[in-house]
């Protein structure tokens, strides 16, 4: 914090880095080759296709029960962040975690089976939709259905990394609404206090259920809250996977240099309702239309087509492959068994 003193005014200046609209020439600098770019696109399509299927299963087929919060529209963030981690990150997720799980390499089968409450699910059917991003061997460490609560836990992971001198980072995913919780505040302060290797990845999708971020985050931008912890803030086009990737690399490198946490605000849009049953009647339709034009998948596939990294046919093939994979996941889930009741006691205590 470098306040400029000017009579009776302290002018507080804080630089918030913006990352958006990357020049295609930057792609190489980021170390991304064609095959990696296609993998990223494929993962985004996988998430989207998965969510479309989930919506169908809940809403139209009534085949699934409980809550499900779709990651639809936010794919660039999970994919950009998780690819940038390159296996050097431990991720903490939320109630809106299907995308995080898939981006961390958990298979659609395991995630889908979890939604079906089957023993083949990622949590053996005990967790359900809000807890799918859990597979410690893949770096998927926990998903909290309580908003804000996974953020202090991610801080603990960062603490462990620093304690053991490991060259990795912890990542806390959360959205705009979470930044108004007490847990979030305590977590960011503690992370800065100990200068921990953490990326605070805010998926500002503009809403917390029906509450607009622009109202509830009273300073207007989540990234500005970095000031309160003396840490760097970034504002990033969260619908551009390359901007997401670049920002995450920066924050990760900083963390690995021992310079502490970064708060990144990824701007995106929750393209669907809050949960599968919500029609989002509380928000203007033209706002939805505006964001639709920024759809992260069409933007990225358009870019890759333009760059010649992928052809139209390849893209179609890839889409079909993914579709099939998701159908298989559904079949797999249907055929799987429910967990035995006796399991409950076995897993309550270790």
């Amino acid at each position, binding site marked *: 914090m470098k306040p400029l003193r000017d009579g009776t005014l302290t002018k507080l200046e804080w630089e918030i880095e913006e990352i958006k609209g990357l020049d295609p020439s930057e792609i190489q600098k980021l170390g991304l080759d064609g095959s990696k770019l296609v993998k990223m696109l494929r993962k985004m399509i996988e998430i989207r296709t998965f969510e479309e299927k989930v919506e169908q299963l809940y809403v139209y087929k009534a085949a699934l*029960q*409980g*809550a499900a919060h779709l990651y639809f529209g936010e794919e660039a963030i999970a994919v950009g962040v998780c690819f940038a981690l390159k296996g050097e990150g431990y991720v903490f997720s939320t109630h809106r975690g299907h995308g995080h799980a898939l981006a961390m390499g958990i298979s659609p089968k395991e995630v889908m089976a*979890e939604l079906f*409450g*089957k023993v083949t699910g990622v*949590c053996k*059917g*005990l*967790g*359900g*939709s*809000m*807890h799918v991003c859990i597979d410690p061997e893949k770096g998927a460490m926990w998903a*909290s*259905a*309580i*908003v*804000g609560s996974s953020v202090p836990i991610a801080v603990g992971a960062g603490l462990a990394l620093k304690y053991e001198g490991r060259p990795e980072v912890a990542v806390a995913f959360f959205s705009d*609404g*979470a930044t*108004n*919780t*007490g*847990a979030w505040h305590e977590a960011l302060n503690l992370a800065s206090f100990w200068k921990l290797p953490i990326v605070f990845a805010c998926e500002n999708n503009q809403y*917390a*259920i*029906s*509450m607009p971020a622009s109202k*509830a*985050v009273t300073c207007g931008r989540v990234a500005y809250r970095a000031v309160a912890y003396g840490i760097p803030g970034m504002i990033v086009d969260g619908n551009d996977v390359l901007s997401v990737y670049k920002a995450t690399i920066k924050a990760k490198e900083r963390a690995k240099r021992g310079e502490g946490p970064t708060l990144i605000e990824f701007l995106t849009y929750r393209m669907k309702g809050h949960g599968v049953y919500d029609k989002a*009647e*509380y928000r203007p339709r033209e706002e939805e239309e505006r964001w639709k034009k920024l759809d992260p998948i069409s933007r990225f596939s358009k870019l890759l087509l333009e760059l010649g990294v992928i052809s139209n046919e390849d893209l179609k093939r890839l889409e079909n492959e993914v579709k099939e994979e998701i159908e298989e996941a559904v079949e797999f889930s249907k055929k799987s068994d*429910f*967990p035995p*009741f006796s399991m*409950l*006691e076995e897993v*309550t205590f270790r």
Partner: protein
Amino acid sequence: MREITYAEAIREALKQEMQRDPNVFLLGEDIGAYGGAFKVLKGMLDEFGPERVRDTPISEAAIVGAAIGAALMGLRPVAEIMYMDFLPIATEQLVVQAAKMSFTSGGKLRVPIVVRTQYSLGRAHASQHSEFFPVWYMNAPGLKVALPSTPYDAKGMLISAIRDDNPVLFIECGLLYRNKGSVPEEPYEVPLGSADVKREGEDVTVVAVSRVVVEALKAAEELQKEGISVEVVDPRTLSPLDRKTITDSVKKTGRAVVAADDHKTGGVTAELTATIVEGAFDYLDAPIVRVASPDVPIPFSPPLEKQYMVWSDDIVKAIKEIV
């Protein structure tokens, strides 16, 4: 009499109290245009406007804290915590602050707040969106704890809670929202601290809480066919606890089953057992049987959740153990 749902009864209580008393207002997450997560507050924003139906950011501690402060100034806030699972975040405000204020100030302060919440067991919402742990609040002097099991009680008890000068935790049950029952149109009070004999019987007393009252009544119906006469007592509030109605019933029947949706160990059924031991030990012809949720978290997998829960069959089985 007109039949309406449990959710409608709650909405009607809030409406009528807000019409009666301009000091009553609502605050909570997504209670305005969204109408609350379960649409219990649908239409309230239109009727009362944003000053009296106040959406908040996700800040459970501040929601309850703000209610407390407004109450200290003479208003009568009704705060909503969307799921009981989020209440722990606000529990320091509710239990360590609100419940102790009258006492700590030597009686100078009064904190007429109502904190409404609901537990969602039975809706496949998994371990962090289904919990029910009323005993925490029962073990917190200075706080009243109300858990209506019928639309009638829901309306009358909520009106009483709003008019009460003490902090009241009002725990609704998500699975009951669509249950229908007779509810008078005019406002009325069901006094906090009075249990209700929901069904009279001779052979055994079932003391049941919230949703499980409905299961106990089903069990009673079923056992009647077998010639077993079951009395069902609903404490309605856990604090204050109407020990007399409970023990009077057990004195009459000589046998007791206590049943609730919370985990068994250290749960409300333990207190109900102890209450009966203290008040009617010499009348007991058999041990008291507890029926409650297992001592494990709540599973998502829908068939497991079903198996996990207390149903009328479990109560029938418990009764048969002792009759």
